[in-house]
């Protein structure tokens, strides 16, 4: 597979480590009453679609960026690649508003 790195262009997926569902970015608030349950759902119940999937990949043998890769799990086609730090910042700023 080839991942179109937003900064570095096409790179062999072999340089990357895949973590899985990008919803791991959305870590729950530890102070909520049902924090244990929220963390359970956050950590264990991840998206696993047959189709488009947003997932985290780490450029371990490259620039150490975490990327959010939108990939079709049936065809392996990659539709979008973003820097995870940008995605996370956007998510955090939305949280705050």
């Amino acid at each position, binding site marked *: *597979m*080839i991942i179109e790195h937003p900064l570095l262009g096409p790179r062999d997926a072999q340089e990357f480590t895949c973590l899985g569902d990008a919803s791991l*970015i959305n*870590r729950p608030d530890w102070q909520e009453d049902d924090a*244990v349950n929220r963390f359970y759902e956050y950590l264990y119940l991840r998206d696993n679609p047959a189709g488009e999937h947003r997932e985290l990949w*780490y450029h371990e043998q490259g620039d150490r960026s975490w990327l959010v890769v939108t990939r079709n799990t049936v065809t392996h086609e990659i539709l979008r690649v973003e820097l*995870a730090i940008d995605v*996370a*910042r956007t998510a955090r700023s939305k949280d705050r508003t």
Partner: protein
Amino acid sequence: MSTDNRLEGGLVDRSSSVRFSFDGASYTGFKGDTLASALLANGVRLMGRSFKYHRPRGPLTAGPEEPNALVELRGKNRREPNTRATTVELFDGLEADSQNRWPSLKFDALAINDLMPSLFAAGFYYKTFMWPKAFWEKLYEPLIRRAAGLGSLSGEPDPDVYDKGFLHCDMLVIGSGPAGLAAALAGGRAGARVILAEEDFIVGGRLNAESFSVDDKPGHEWARSVFDELSSMANVRILTRTAVIGAFDHGVYGALERLTDHLATAEPGKPRQVLWRIYAKRTVLCAGATERPIAFPNNDRPGIMLSGAIRSYVNRFATTPGKKVAIFTNNDDGLRTVTDLKAKGVEIAAVIDTRTDGPSIDNVTHFQGARVVDTKGRYGLQEITVEQANGKTCRIDCLALGVSGGWNPNVHLTCHQRGRPVWDESLAAFLPHGVPEGMQVAGAANGELSTAAAFATGARTAGEALEDLGFKATGGKLPQSEDDPVNISPFWYVEGKGRAWVDLQNDVTVKDIKLAHQEGYRSVEHLKRYTTLGMATDQGKTANITGLAVMAEATGKSIPETGTTIFRPPYSPVAIGAFAGRHRDMSFRPVRKTPSHKWAEEQGAVFVEAGQWLRAQWYPQSGETHWRESVDREVLATRKSVGICDVTTLGKIDIQGADATRFVNAVYCNAFAKLPVNKVRYGLMLREDGMVMDDGTTARLAEDHYVMTTTTANAGPVFRHLEFCRQCLWPELDVQLISTTEAWAQFAVAGPNSRGLLRKIVDRDFDLSNDAFPFMGCAEVTVCGGLRARLFRISFSGELAYEIAVPTRYGDALVRALMKAGEEFDVTPYGTEALGVMRIEKGHVTGNELNGTITALNLGMERMVSSKKDSIGTVLSRREGMNHGDALKLVGLRPVDASQAFAAGSHFMKRGDEASAANDQGYMTSVCFSPNLGHAIGLGFLKDGANRIGEVVRAVNPLQKQETEVEVVSPHFIDPEGERLRG
């Protein structure tokens, strides 16, 4: 039988004769021959035995699709079993042997199977060999295993080396027949980066095997001229002897280049083959087509081969499989063989055309609407029986029979991403469908079977791809060549009494397929698996479609309704060694050496693998005969005076930034918010699921600067985790991370005299006294007259100890200086074993304890998990199942009888309990002999262990037939109050 079937002409080099041997007999061929063509030229038709019935076989094909002519090539540790004689390029001194036969190719004992074919019908083994139960492994299976298999491995390590390589291009052209050459020319002339890959050792594909002319030149000459033109282009790379073996995601292709297989010996250090990974923006697949046979009774005799293969032998290799040849066809292409044979003066015994309306041929015995219904000649064809249109049969003498059932486009690579070809009625063949992204198919592979159409579609397809990529295709005149239509009337098999083979190698007959149908194995997948159709080394390249057609007829459905089998990589079999490349033996993975490696080697150290690192395990001294002597000495010397150990392998992560404190506090479960500058603290890192991930010490070098250490094994995973936390969880924090594991050479200096030793190394302006630099202090210092260094007062051994770090290139010098400076204290270098002993004596945990299923509670560190802050893992560590009353707790163990030993991996049982899973109380994680205590000691996890100090339990180890009574004690065997390390 003739001994010389060599003809005039051809593309072999008659000036270069080549000697070779087959089954010990010597022969001569020419450069440019394959093993099969040279053997045929020498009148040898019998080259192999089939898998199940051990039927005598000769080549069916002249290419990689060969099912029959498999040999063991080369000898000794270079033996290559199952090598297709039809693709082996002849070289001087080549040695080949037949296989799957005993005692000889001609007299094969297991050919007895052929006398009872009915017993060995499809799937017979699923229905018997079940009684008595014990007989399967003892009797039946060994017999079957010995009879099965084909060639044999040498059993010796492969002596050759293999390379891997990586190529990038705009356009990859697969196959160099007319379509491929046209495509490559278009790409080359447009200035694109083109790779042309050809499996054969010359370019041209069928142009080399046919007698057509192209632009008034013989086809092979035209191919040669294009080769010359392409070779002159800097932007084109031609890879001959290179099979593209797989189409992977996003335009990544695997290709195997054979560099030295055509040579008697390779130069040392030169690879035999290269496995290329080709990154192609676009791919034009011009893989051609493969002819398929017609099944008829006894259609497997040596001398019966594909009609097009005979043309390859005649036109390219200047050899005929026999002096008298018959042709059996259902299409016009089969008739071309007649013309070509006649042109070379080979006698045509007869032409049998299944069609009643096929073209007529002059001056040849020609049967229309006829079929071959039987053959004779056990070791080589002698005679065929023809059933004529009027139902009468006649026998015809012949030494070879060319069979053509039509051509199947080579769709293999189009299926590698699970594309499913579709049936085309007019060609009676499957055409590519659902091809991988970026791939386009041209020429015969796409069902364009005439040479002119191959040129046209090759050029056009390449042109489209080039335009997509932004290149301007130059167009240009297409070469002129034959443009004959395909006239085919599907005909798959001849009904008859005898066995009609569909899959020749695996001995799958028409009857087997019908039996599979009768027993309900009707889907293509069931058919393949039940009968083994298409599962042999040729992957059914010549068999699958016929098999499908037979099944279709049995089910009364059309072929497309019956299904299609798709092909998986690799397109042709690839040596496992080639996939491994250089990564074998000592080069399997890189070696990481510590800064003191060279010095340790000089000391005669014994090294041990710690992940990729090599670390000194102990330093034997003269007179020491057992490792324990060395380790005990190192431990005692360190605890008595001072020892030195290279601890560079621990991961070191530099953490800086305005929010570094917040960050460190959030990734460790224990509190770090108030760690003063110039202080070190032990940190416990949890995974988000609450299990311990790693531990280590983290030093605060400045307000906004920390250095975290990790265990050796987890340096990479922890760094990845921290980057995840930084980028994905807390992107608003000002934190910068970088690994400095390699940048600093770090040594533990441990023992009561460590301070005295370091006073001689650390520059005087730094006060090493206990008051000025107490336990858990850290500082940036200079050593040996100004070299910057880092000093940490931390202790893994439990002694007064320091770790000192200098830039890595000074590590070698530092260890030498430490040893020199330590002479007055009898300083001792110690290895990982002594390190391990001392940490067990002190009750520190390592990877043996931190096995990924252990919580802070299990370690007795539950109070470290701060509930007052958000840190990774704290929330889920509160789950009920991780906090129940009799949770495992870390304890120390010592033998009740001090002379007794025990082993890590033992399980704890209460005294008096039966040793069983139900009574399991926990397990031993680490064990060593403590030279200080004079007996074995261990660490382990025991249910409710903290409340069981003083209890005697049994450490049972049935695996090693050991059982020892052990007393549960505190895990801190030595200096439990920590007075030494604070001294």
